[in-house]
C-alpha cells in the first residue's frame, strides 16, 4: 500500500482519538464507580434501576408508615392494658360484693372505688396519640369520644360515645393493609369491634360499671352477683380479645418491616450489581489503554519527526 503523508497523519489522529475516548470512558467509570450513568449507557439497566428505585422508595415509605402505625398500636396497647387492670380490679370488687359478706361501710367504700375506676377508664378512653388524635374515637379522631353525665353528687350516671365505628386501613406493603385503630364502641353489629362496648359480644363497660357503682351504693348485692359480675367478666374478656388482636397487628407490622428491610437490601444489591463498575477490570483496562496511548504517541512522534527533509542539506 502506498502511504502518503496524510495517510499517516490521518490514521495517527484517528487512533489517538479512539484511545482518548476509551480513556475518557474508563476514567469516568473509575471516578464515579458506575458503569452506567445515563440512559444511553445501558437502556435496559437504566429502566430496571428506575423501577427498582421506585419500588425501593415505596418500601422505605411502607417502613415509615409502619413506624407511625407501630407507635399508635403501642399507644393503644398501653391504654388497653391499663384498662384491663382497672376492669379486673372492678371485677374483683364485684366478686367480693356478690358474696354478701361485706358490710355496708365496705360496700360504700367499694362504690367510691368503682367511681374512681370509671373516671380512670374515661381518661383512658379519651387517650390521644403524639399527633393529638383520639385513638378510641374511630376515624373521628378530633372529637373527644367519651363524655360523661353526672348526678348532683358528681357521680357518673352515664357515658355517651361521640366517636364513630370506622377504622382507617393503612398500607404496610404492596397489597398489604392493616388497621391499628380500635373504635371505642360499636353497637351497629358490623365493622370493627368496639373496645368498651360491642353489641355482638354484649360488652358495655361503662354501663356495667355505673350499674355496679349504683348497686354498691344501694347495697343491692343480689343484683351485683346476678347481673353485674357476669357482665363485667364479659367486658374484661372483650378487652382481652382486643389486646390480643393488637398483639397480632403489632407482629404483622414487625413482619412487614422485616420484609421491607430485606427487600430493600436485595434491591440495593441488585442496583449495585447492575450499575457498579468492576474496579479491577476498569483499572486494568485503563492501564492497558494508557499503555497503548503512550505507545501510539511515542511511535507516532518517532515516525513523524523523521522525513527525507531531515537529510536534505
Amino acid at each position, binding site marked *: *500500500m*502506498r502511504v*502518503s*503523508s*496524510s*495517510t499517516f*497523519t*490521518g*490514521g495517527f489522529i*484517528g487512533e489517538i482519538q479512539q484511545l482518548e475516548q476509551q480513556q475518557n470512558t474508563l476514567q469516568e467509570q473509575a471516578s*464515579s*464507580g*458506575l458503569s*452506567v*450513568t*445515563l*440512559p*444511553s*449507557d*445501558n*437502556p*435496559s439497566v*437504566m*429502566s*430496571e*434501576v*428506575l*423501577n427498582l*428505585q*421506585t419500588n425501593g422508595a*415505596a418500601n*422505605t*415509605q*411502607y417502613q*415509615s*408508615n409502619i413506624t*407511625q*402505625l407501630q407507635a399508635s398500636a403501642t399507644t393503644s396497647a398501653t391504654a388497653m392494658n391499663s384498662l384491663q387492670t382497672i376492669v379486673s380490679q372492678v371485677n374483683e370488687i364485684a366478686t367480693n360484693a356478690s358474696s354478701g359478706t361485706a358490710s355496708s361501710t365496705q360496700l360504700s367504700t367499694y362504690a367510691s372505688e368503682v367511681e374512681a375506676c370509671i373516671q380512670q377508664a374515661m381518661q383512658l378512653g379519651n387517650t390521644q396519640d403524639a*399527633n393529638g*388524635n383520639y385513638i378510641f*374515637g*374511630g*376515624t*373521628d*379522631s*378530633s372529637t373527644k369520644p367519651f363524655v360523661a353525665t353526672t348526678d348532683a353528687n358528681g357521680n357518673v350516671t352515664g357515658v355517651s360515645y361521640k366517636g364513630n365505628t*370506622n377504622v*382507617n*386501613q*393503612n*398500607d404496610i406493603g*404492596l*397489597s398489604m393493609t392493616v388497621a391499628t385503630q380500635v373504635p371505642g364502641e360499636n353497637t351497629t353489629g358490623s365493622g370493627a369491634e368496639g373496645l368498651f362496648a360491642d353489641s355482638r359480644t354484649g360488652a358495655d363497660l361503662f354501663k356495667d360499671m355505673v350499674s355496679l357503682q349504683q348497686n354498691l351504693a344501694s347495697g343491692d348485692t343480689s343484683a351485683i352477683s346476678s347481673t353485674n359480675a357476669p357482665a363485667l367478666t364479659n367486658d374484661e374478656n372483650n378487652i382481652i380479645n382486643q389486646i390480643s388482636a393488637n398483639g397480632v397487628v403489632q407482629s404483622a407490622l414487625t413482619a412487614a418491616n422485616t420484609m421491607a428491610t430485606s427487600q430493600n437490601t436485595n434491591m440495593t444489591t441488585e*442496583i*449495585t450489581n447492575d*450499575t*457498579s463498575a468492576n474496579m479491577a477490570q476498569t483499572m486494568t483496562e485503563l492501564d492497558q489503554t494508557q499503555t497503548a496511548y503512550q505507545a501510539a504517541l511515542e511511535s507516532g512522534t518517532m515516525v513523524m519527526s523523521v*522525513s*527525507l*527533509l531531515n537529510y536534505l542539506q
Partner: protein
Amino acid sequence: MAGQSLSVETQATAVAGQNLANVSNPAYADEQLQVQAAPSLDTTSGDEGTGVQATKITQLWDSLLNSQIVAEDSVSGSLNSQQSALQQTEAYLNEQLSSSSSTGTSSSNGLAADLSGLFNSLQTLSTDPTSIPDRQAVAQSAQQLTQQFNSVSSGLTTVASDLNTSIQNGVTSSNNDLSQIAALNEQIINAQADGGTDNNLIDQREKTIEDLAGYANITTSAQSNGAVNVSIGGVTMVADGATPDSLQTYTNSSGQLMIQAQNAGTPLTLTGGSIEGSITARDGQVATLQNSINTLASTLITQFNSVYSGGYDLNNNNSTQDFFTGSDAASIGVNSTVVNDPTTFQASGTSGDTGDNTVVLSLANLASQSLSSLSNQTLSQSYAATIGDFGSALQSVNSQISNSTAVSQMLATQRSSETGVDTDTEMTNLMQYQKAYEASAELVTTVNQMLETLIDMKTE
C-alpha cells in the same frame, strides 16, 4: 532542446511545489506532470532526439472512492445531527445515576423520583389524614412533580425548535454550496473548452460536493464537458453552470418544518445528511418521547382527579375543583387553592368524617395500579420503559456513529493512500528535477562553450 528541457523541469518543480503545498488538503488529489520524449528528427545517421516535452498535468483521481466518501458524508451528517439532538434531550430528562455512600446508586433528579415523592407523601398523609404538615407535604411534592413535567416538556420543545433552526441553517448552507458548485462548473467547462483542465477547481468542487453531502444526500453525474450535475431527491439542483432549483423549507399540514424544491415545489424526502437527521430526530425520538411524557401526565391528571373528586376536605367540603390542572406535561399544575390552603385537600371519603383516609389511600395506591392508557403498566413502570426506549435509540445512534466513523476513516485512508501527497516522494522528485535542471543547464553551458571555441577559432 536544452531550453525546452529547462522549462519542463521548471514546470515539474512547480507541480511538486503545488503537491507539497496541498499535503494536508484531504480533497486534494496528487498531481503529476506527464512528460514524453519530443518527436525525433529523421537524419541520415538515424533518428535524433529533440529532447522532452510536457504533455499534461494529471491527477490521481478515483471517482468511485469519491462517490463512496460523498455517500458516507450523508450518513454521518444525519447521524451526527441525531446524536447531538438526542444527547441534548437526554440531558433535559435529568435521569443520571450517581453513587453516594449513604443511599447507594440512585437517580434523584428526574420524574421517576418525583413520582415516588408524590405517592410517598400521600402514604404519609394516609397514616394521619388530618395532619396539616402532611397535607402541605403532599401539595409540595405534587408541585415538584408538575414543575419537573413542565421542565422536561419545555426542554423537549427547545430541542425540537433547535432542530428546526438547524434545518433552516442546513438549507441555507446547502444552497450556498449548490451555487458554488455551479460557479465552479462554469469555470471548469470554460477551461476544458480551451483545451485544458483546471485541477485546482476540480479539487475545490469535490470539497464543496462533500460539504453539501453532509447536509443532504445527493446524486452526482459527471458530464463530458467537465461539469458535475447535482440532484437532490430526484430534482436537479445544479446543471452545468446553472442552478435550476434550490432547497426551501415549508410548513406541512401537521405544522412541521419540512424541505421542498423551491422552483419545482415538490416536497423532498431526504435519506441522509444533517437536514434529514434533524427531521428524523424531531419527528422520531423527540416526538415519541414528548408523546409518552404527555400521556404519562394526562393519565396522572385524569386518574388522580377522578379519585380526588369523590373526597371531602378538612372543612367537610366536596369541591368540584380538580387537584391537578392542565391536560399534558406542558400545562400540568397543582390547584392553587390546595397549595394556599392545605386543609382543602380532599383526603376523606366520608362526609362528616375528616379523619377518614379512604380517598388519600386510594390516591396513594394509584402508584401500584396498572393503567390501561399506559399499556397496563403503572405510572412509574411506563416512565421507566419510556426512558429505556429513549436510551436504546440514543445508544443505537451512538453505535451507528462509531461504525460510520470507522467507514469514513477507512475511506479517507484509502483515498489518501491512492491520491494523497507524500512529502518524501515529492522531495525525491524535486531533487530529481533539480539534478535534471542542472544537467540541462550544464548542456547549455557546454554548447555555449563549444560555440565560443568555434567563434574564437574564426576570429584568430
